[in-house]
């Protein structure tokens, strides 16, 4: 890629961000007054896109962006007020802008006339705005405040000189506007010996009397904005002048140094850009991988060294400890690079909700909470579809029509809540609505109808609610344009499972439903419990473990069709013999004196017990895909590389729970089960 292409690429990357920014605010626009900061953001976004597009000669894009920019400029300066329908139009205009950017990016000319309609309306808005001065009072006050006497504080940065800007020329230009007195502040000037010849040390305090307006003064400094500290302050501080936004912003002159170029248009984004850089995800991933390796290598080194180093080598031990700590910190630091706030994801939803509420004829308010919660970027990306689907589902099936709501004594406007929080090293995302909730009877009947459960099955409320995640539950009857695109909640569940998370639903009929997604913070590491069975070691995800018990042999019952069950505080728990599921042989291995049942929770909240020989301790492991070079194996969720460099398998609890009990080729295994019972029996005796 040559430099030019690279610049172009950067421009498009930026456009994406800018468009998102535009859309974020556009989604909150309403007729009448709006948040000035948001309007400023929108204006800047369009402005930046226009500027970039101009450099690359995307003429159609420039033209459209120009008109949109003008409209936004008028709106933000209060010269135009958004009428009913305008906010929606501006959002559409944002779409057009996005299409034009996409066309420019792909190099394919956008459809002719794509932007015509929107362009015409923008122009009409501009013409209309000029014809009827929207707020004459405001105009007037702006005019008053704009003209008069100003104090200007001007401190050029080194960068300004480096771009060959000469302060003197600026002073000349200012002098043309009015009566100028300038005083140089030399207090920052160091001794000659310490002076950097190309540094800017001098600042100026100026008074300009009889200037036509602030805008004209700003224009003088247009080319050095961002390269200097610049503040304006009206000299005659009349009370009504203080109302003027520009003056208010320029007001806090107490710390002009700390607030560089407070008034300049591009100071905002410039400041933001300087604190973040764009890095390809792949590079970060490589870094994460490498640090993962480092952690393993470090643990291995420590392992082998600890045999050699004893108490006489206190210094060396300390050094090793130090190294361990630093490595951990490094790992945490690198992981944090991948973490991003959920804000970027959540911000898509106001718009979706808005569009959809119109389509469905339901009035819906979306409440967002916990947008600052940070999650691994990969997870954020993978969450977009499931969350969109769930929100649509809530709005389509969950919320009632306005009439039904009123009839049920609820406010006409429905509420969909999207919230996120960290809990126990996992992230919980909730999507809830205050709609009609799930009707257990209906759900059950439908599941029976679709052949998912037997009509005489006795299920708890939770189990019935969990049925909606079963493949084949979503049926043709409910396929609508909105949520029933042939995908149901089972797809949502599968997507979440792929991320190592789980989704549950709680519902109260008539009051609403809450879907809860519990996800790992990152896909790269996992807290696991190392267990051993017949000489093999496996990792059980700690998040699935409920408790560990030592089952009483007399309480364990074998089922006629194979498998065993045990009681636990009134609940019947199915036992899964890992030795059997993993097809391990106990040949040459002594039978352990006692066996443990690790009680784990499956997807549906059902509990099963994994029968193991020993618990070896808790460990954080680096997750590696088995599928990258091999294939999926039943009962195995993935692999982990442990401190000793060995690969261990991470157990897939749900997979194990649904694996058929081995019976046919069975004699030895039956014997095995019997043995294990004897073993536990031996303990209890």
């Amino acid at each position: 890629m040559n430099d030019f292409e690279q610049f172009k690429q950067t421009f498009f990357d930026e456009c994406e961000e800018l468009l998102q920014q535009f859309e974020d605010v556009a989604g909150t626009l309403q007729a009448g007054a709006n948040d000035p900061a948001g309007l400023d953001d929108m204006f800047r976004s369009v402005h930046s896109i226009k500027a970039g597009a101009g450099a690359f000669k995307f003429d159609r894009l420039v033209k459209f962006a120009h008109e949109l920019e003008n409209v936004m400029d008028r709106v933000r300066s209060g010269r135009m007020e958004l009428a009913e329908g305008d906010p929606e139009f501006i959002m559409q205009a944002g779409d057009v802008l996005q299409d034009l950017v996409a066309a420019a990016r792909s190099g394919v000319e956008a459809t002719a006339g794509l932007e015509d309609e929107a362009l015409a309306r923008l122009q009409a808005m501009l013409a209309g705005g000029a014809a009827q001065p929207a707020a004459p009072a405001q105009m007037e006050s702006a005019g008053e405040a704009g003209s008069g006497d100003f104090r200007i504080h001007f401190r050029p940065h080194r960068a300004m000189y480096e771009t060959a800007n000469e302060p003197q020329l600026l002073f000349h230009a200012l002098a043309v506007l009015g009566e100028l007195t300038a005083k140089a502040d030399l207090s920052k000037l160091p001794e000659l010996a310490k002076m950097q010849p190309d540094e800017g040390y001098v600042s100026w305090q100026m008074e300009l009397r009889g200037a036509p307006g602030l805008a004209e003064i700003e224009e003088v400094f247009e080319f050095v904005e961002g390269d200097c500290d610049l503040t304006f302050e009206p000299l005659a501080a009349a009370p009504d002048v203080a109302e003027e936004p520009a003056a208010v912003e320029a007001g806090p002159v107490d710390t002009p140094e700390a607030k560089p170029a407070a008034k300049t248009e591009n100071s905002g984004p410039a400041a933001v850009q300087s604190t973040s850089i764009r890095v390809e995800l792949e590079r970060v991933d490589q870094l994460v991988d490498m640090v993962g390796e480092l952690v393993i290598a470090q643990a291995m080194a420590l392992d082998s060294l600890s045999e050699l180093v004893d108490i006489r080598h206190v210094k060396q031990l300390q050094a090793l400890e130090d190294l361990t700590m630093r490595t951990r910190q490094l790992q945490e630091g690198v992981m944090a690079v991948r973490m991003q706030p959920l804000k970027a994801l959540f911000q898509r939803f106001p718009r979706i909700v808005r569009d959809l509420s119109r389509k469905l004829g339901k009035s819906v308010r979306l409440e967002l909470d916990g947008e600052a919660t940070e999650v691994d970027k990969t997870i954020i990306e993978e969450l977009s579809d499931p969350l969109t689907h769930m929100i649509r589902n809530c709005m389509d099936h969950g919320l009632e029509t306005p009439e039904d709501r009123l009839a049920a004594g609820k406010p006409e406007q429905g509420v969909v809540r999207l919230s996120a929080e960290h809990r126990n090293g996992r992230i919980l995302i909730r999507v809830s609505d205050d709609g009609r909730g799930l009707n257990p009877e209906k759900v059950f009947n439908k599941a029976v109808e679709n052949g998912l459960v037997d009509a005489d099955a006795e299920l708890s409320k939770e189990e019935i609610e969990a049925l909606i995640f079963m493949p084949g539950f979503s049926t043709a009857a409910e396929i609508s344009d909105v949520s029933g695109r042939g995908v149901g909640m089972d797809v949502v569940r599968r997507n979440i499972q792929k991320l190592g998370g789980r989704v549950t639903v709680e519902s109260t009929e008539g009051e609403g439903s809450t879907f809860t997604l519990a996800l790992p913070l990152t896909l790269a590491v996992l807290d696991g419990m190392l267990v051993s069975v017949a000489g093999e070691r496996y990792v059980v995800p700690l998040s699935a473990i409920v408790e560990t018990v030592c089952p009483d042999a007399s309480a364990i019952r074998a089922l006629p069709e194979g498998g065993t069950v045990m009681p636990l505080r009134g609940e019947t728990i199915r036992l899964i013999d890992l030795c059997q599921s993993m097809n391990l042989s106990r040949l040459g291995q002594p039978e352990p004196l006692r066996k443990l049942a690790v009680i784990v929770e499956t997807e549906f909240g059902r509990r099963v017990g994994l029968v193991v020989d020993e618990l070896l301790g808790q460990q954080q492991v680096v997750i590696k895909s088995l599928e990258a070079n091999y294939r999926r194996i039943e009962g195995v969720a993935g692999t982990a590389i442990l401190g000793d460099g060995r690969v261990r398998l991470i157990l897939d609890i749900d997979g194990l729970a649904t694996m058929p009990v081995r019976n046919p080729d069975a004699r030895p295994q039956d014997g095995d089960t019997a043995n294990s019972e004897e073993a536990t029996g031996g303990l209890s005796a």
Partner: protein
Amino acid sequence: MNAEEAVLATAEAIAAGRETSSDAKQYVSFAAGDEQYAVDIISVREIKGWTDVTSLPNQPDHVRGVLNLRGAVLPIIDLQCRLGGGLTETSPRHVIVIVAVDDRQVGLLVDAVSDILSASDERIQPVPETSGREDARVFSGFLTEEEQMVAMLDLTRLLGSEVLDSALHEQTELQ
């Protein structure tokens, strides 16, 4: 050759191959059981000595398990067993030849690396059609020198059933 010698020989051969721009291709040959096999040197990523692997549950016998190779988890296929022989009795003298097929890396457990062969395509003879045995298809040809026969492995076919089709399997499963 043990793993270290084999690595050196391979590196030399690759360097030599760059210099002599003949149309002869180079192959790494190795012994498994009583037979000699070879794969294109391009597909060989690494050669290392045998270390204990982590076994996988409910897999065919010839899948010996998985190994951590600098952070990647690779399956190790027992070549002798895959081709219908018995399980290899492993020792530290045994060698794992790591090959790349379609973006995937797989380790082949063999007895020892034998040689680096250089042969033009016409010297490789097709597999005689007489054999109805299934594993015949995993050979792409034979390189016969005097009494010594080296079977050229078609890695895609050799590893296909376990390793390469899995993406496909999964998709169909999901549907």
